[in-house]
């Protein structure tokens, strides 16, 4: 039973090209969401909107290890993972703006990003409910005898739901190829982990499901990659699930309607955690390794900002969904086979 805390692998973090890609992915998420907050304040984005700022090493670290035919399922805090998987900033921003060029043609919004072609099975809004779905994806992989994996992201509050328990029990029982990544950012809205869960090393819950489990630093993209790689290998080659607790922190409020710090956490605590900004940590590492000059970084940042501006402009110009769309996609019209009143056997 794996129960150790994986360490960063040096072979990984000495690869300059890879590190540039990781940095690019994380910085894109950061800049994109800064613009998201701005657009929200201007009323261009409505509804619930949960930013991922501070947690980018988790999405990038995990998703950078996946094959194109693997699957991802996640919560409403889904912009970062969507971008890390390769959804275009245009498609994500248009969805946020509720426009027809959004990844769900404006029907989903911030909490419900989907892209079938990328195996991105959605942001889901009922806390805990997508964990059985991710488990079912694992079941389907095993049913077909494939070697894909499903990565199921969730917040730490999810471990207190019945759906989590029911799903992980089945995954452990049936040995399904799922990597459950708990993004432990210490709070579910305003309730700290310690005020919600009877145990505080929540990866230990894996014991109840006979499931390999581990904990890692979620601000260090290499630590995330090392831990997730181990879990992916186990899923792919042994069809065994893993419960991985990734310790991270959100730098923004729970959603756009929540102050960054306030009743449930202090400014001092926030400042302390912000010292370990995952992007800054990677940047410093790359500087030390002579993998990134200030000019490189500035150039990358300018490019990314331009991409985000383009996404904004594109979304702004994208039309609202046509009114006919209101009644579309409630049901699919076609059945897989023609069904007619008594048909003879074929």
């Amino acid at each position, binding site marked *: 039973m794996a129960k150790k805390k994986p360490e960063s692998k040096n072979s990984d973090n000495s690869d300059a090209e890879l590190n540039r890609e990781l940095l690019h992915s994380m910085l894109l998420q950061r800049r994109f969401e800064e613009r998201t907050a701005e657009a929200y304040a201007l009323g261009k984005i409505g509804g619930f909107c949960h930013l991922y700022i501070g947690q980018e090493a988790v999405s990038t670290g995990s998703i950078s290890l996946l094959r194109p035919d693997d*699957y991802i*399922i996640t919560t409403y805090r889904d912009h970062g993972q969507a971008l890390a998987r390769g959804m275009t900033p245009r498609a994500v921003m248009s969805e946020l703006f509720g426009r027809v060029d*959004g*990844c*769900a*043609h*404006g*029907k*989903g919004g911030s909490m*419900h990003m*989907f*892209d*079938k072609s990328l195996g991105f*099975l*959605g942001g*889901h*809004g*009922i806390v805990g*409910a*997508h*964990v*059985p*779905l*991710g*488990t*079912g*994806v*694992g*079941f*389907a*992989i*095993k*049913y077909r005898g494939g070697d894909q994996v499903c990565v199921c992201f969730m917040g730490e509050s999810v471990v207190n739901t*019945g*759906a989590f*328990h*029911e*799903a992980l*029990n*089945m995954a452990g*029982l049936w040995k399904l190829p799922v990597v459950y990544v708990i993004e432990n950012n210490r709070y579910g809205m305003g309730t700290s982990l310690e005020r919600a869960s009877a145990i505080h090393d929540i990866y230990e819950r894996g014991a109840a499901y006979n499931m390999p489990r581990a904990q890692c630093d979620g601000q260090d993209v290499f630590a995330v990659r090392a831990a997730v790689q181990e879990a992916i290998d186990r899923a792919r080659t042994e069809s065994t699930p893993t419960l991985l607790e990734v310790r991270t922190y959100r730098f923004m409020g729970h959603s756009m309607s929540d102050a960054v710090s306030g009743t449930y956490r202090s400014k001092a605590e926030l400042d302390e955690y912000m010292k370990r900004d995952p992007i800054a940590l990677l940047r410093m590492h790359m500087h030390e390794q002579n993998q990134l000059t200030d000019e490189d970084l500035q150039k990358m940042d300018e490019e990314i900002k331009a991409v985000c501006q383009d996404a904004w402009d594109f979304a702004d110009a994208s039309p609202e969904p046509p009114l006919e769309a209101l009644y*579309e*996609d*409630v*049901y*699919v019209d*076609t*059945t*897989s*086979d023609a*069904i*007619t*009143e*008594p*048909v*003879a*056997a*074929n």
Partner: protein
Amino acid sequence: MPVITYRDALNRALREEMQRDDRVFLMGEEVAVYQGAYKVSKGLLQEFGEMRVVDTPITELGFAGVGVGAAMVGLRPIIEFMTWNFGVLALDQVLNSAAKLLYMSGGQFNIPIVFRGPNGAALQLSAQHSQAFESWLAHIPGVKVVTPGTPYDALGLLKAAIRDDNPVCFLEGEMLYNTKGEVPDEEYVIPLGKADLKREGSDCSIITSGKMALLAMTVADQLAKENIHIDVVDLRTVRPMDVEAIKTSVEKTNRAVVLEEGWEICGIGTQVVDYIQRECFDSLDAPVVRVHQADVPMPYAKNLERAAKPDAAKTIAAVKKVMYL
């Protein structure tokens, strides 16, 4: 024509569809080794193996969600609830996952899944085990709700439900598994959303579905002796509802009784009556009368249970009321 039970008709539908499409699998409590709590899945484990006939722990919310996830990536799950009374623990997955994913994803993810199991009251199972959930489920855009009353309908409708690319809630009558009826040997499929005229008559319509259609036929036979001829419209699928069939019948008889197993408030009957008042107002010779379960949890005592359920006497009284007899 061969006569078989409702149970065997369902079993045959499952077997035929699993033979024809290897993406179809059955999952639920006691479906495999035990052969089904009501023996509907008898022999399937032996024929299809444990990857396709899957026993689960008692974990409705979990395995309903497993089904939805598997459907998202191309399988065609049949999720059996031991009864729909337990299926409500999985309602979140029906309502918030299965029914919503196509819409929320802008048309990318349809969910070809069947949630099935016994529904409605049996005998003296009391309050928690005697509930009819048609209206709960039919309220949800994005799912279809099917209620077969006869072996013939059970077979043809279950096959259609399995082939449908949308989520289908399939409500079997808990009291019907042993009932018998004619079922041809040839393969057939009954399209969802089409009512069946179970009796023809010109004096009064009884609009109903599933198990209650059997009661309506009994009532029709009894009233025929009094020279009152009933049109029995068995909706079979309550969502989508065959409103044309309702209209045709009411325009013919000018009188309607709406009969359902569940409770009165916001029941299926409210929808039928709303439709009749909108579309058949000028045809009506009398206000529509509803027959339904008493507005109470189901009691245990025999006499109280009998008093709570819709029955022939109540239905006959309703017919006579709309006929001013």
